[in-house]
């Protein structure tokens, strides 16, 4: 049958000749190749000092967004937690008091909002689920750490910096 991909190769299993059976020429050939690689440009990216460029739709650390007036957008509806396949998100909701209108956009807000970065698989479903456009995975790589408890990121690490004015 005709090959569709045109990549089919017919291998011939002819017996090895004397030089091939000696192995040594092939070994020297291989060693010459590896030796050449010693002087090639190294591919290593020295990570903490140098960061590689990510694609546009790279999903990194989450950030909880603020609106144009610097108020937190999240209304603690819990849809992100519900959509999360890894059960990484928990939150405690609270009601906005009088005088806090400049802090929270909606009447209900997340008093505690935690993402466990060890559970999170960076799928981005929380971002898709959010009706308030409050959470985006637009941050850097999550930093390594020594203790499990340090991977539970609270609002102090997740919420965007307040607007400067």
């Amino acid at each position: 049958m005709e090959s569709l991909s045109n990549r089919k190769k017919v291998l011939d299993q002819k017996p090895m000749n004397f030089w091939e059976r000696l192995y040594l020429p092939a070994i020297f050939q291989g060693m010459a190749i590896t030796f050449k690689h010693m002087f090639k440009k190294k591919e290593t990216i020295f990570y903490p000092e140098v960061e590689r460029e990510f694609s546009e739709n790279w999903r990194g650390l989450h950030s909880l967004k603020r609106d144009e007036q610097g108020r937190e957008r999240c209304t603690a509806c819990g849809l992100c937690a519900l959509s999360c396949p890894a059960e990484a998100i928990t939150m405690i909701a609270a009601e906005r008091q009088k005088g806090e209108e400049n802090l929270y956009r909606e009447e209900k807000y997340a008093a505690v909002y935690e993402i466990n970065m060890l559970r999170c698989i960076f799928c981005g479903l929380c971002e898709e689920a959010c009706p308030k456009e409050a959470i985006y995975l637009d941050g850097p790589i999550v930093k390594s750490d020594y203790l499990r408890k340090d991977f539970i990121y609270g609002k102090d690490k997740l919420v965007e910096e307040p607007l400067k004015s």
Partner: protein
Amino acid sequence: MELSFIIEKFILITVIFLVSLGIAAYSTLAERKIAGYLQDRVGPNRAGPGGMFQPLADGLKMFMKEEIIPADANRFLFIAGPSLALLTACIGSAVIPWGQDMVIGDRIIPLQVTDINVGILYIFGVVSLGVYGLMIGGWASNNKFSLMGAIRAASQNISYEIPMGLSIIALLLVTNTLSLKEISEMQHGGNWNILYQPLGFLIFMVCSFAETNRTPFDLPECETELVGGYHTEYSGFKMGAFMFAEYLNMFVASAVMSTLYFGGYNYPGMDYVNGLVGPIIGPLIGMAVLFAKVFAFIFFFMWVRWTVPRFRYDQLMNLGWKVLIPLAIANIVITGIWITIYDKL
């Protein structure tokens, strides 16, 4: 035996011991660096400038790890295995002549711990003892992977000792002596044995790869089939001892190859340099040259490791019994004929 003799030997032994430990430690770093460079990476470079202190960090890590002895393992043998491997790896360097005799005042100080007249046989014995460490360790672990690794180590060493011995016999036909010191002296003035025994050297080198359990003959520890081979159950410092023994063996094998075939401490223009710098510095330069050769061999070991894939077990045995042994015997015959004709001329 005078006191100065004892002090002299003591200093020499200490220095050689420390140097070989240092070289073994830094071989681990060199291995990782070379592996990196051959694979377009840079290797470890965080501990100290350019990764200089990586061996210390590794050693520290090995010490801090939990020592686990499996419940059904034979405790005594389990500890004896790595100790024996380390011990035999250390004593191999005793008969290697590191340089010409040093003359201080009217004392002649040989840069060799001991010149026994069966030096090559001694090295042979020590190297084949090394496999007992692996065998005992693998057997005592009470683990089928370890046992497989140990069996492989044993049969591999036995098979490769024969062509190694045969290639040495051809060398002995040329040199007429077993003493490493005399062999070194004979190669003075560019008269290196590699010129007379190229095939013998090739066989010897392939066999020393097998004896030191280096890729492509690292079947005893063969990660892909046997988890870790004979050291599957080992952790912490005992694991470190096995690793260390491997690198020490590599160092000794390199030193033996340099001494037997590549002129040892001899280098072209040696007499001229010795005349310039005198009888104390001269031997030290010779020693540096020997070390340069040793490092070149160690590099070669690593270079091969990161190029050639591991042999299959039947291929290994085929190579040993069906290729190397006939080749080595042919080499003896050819050498014998050549020497007879040469003498008649």
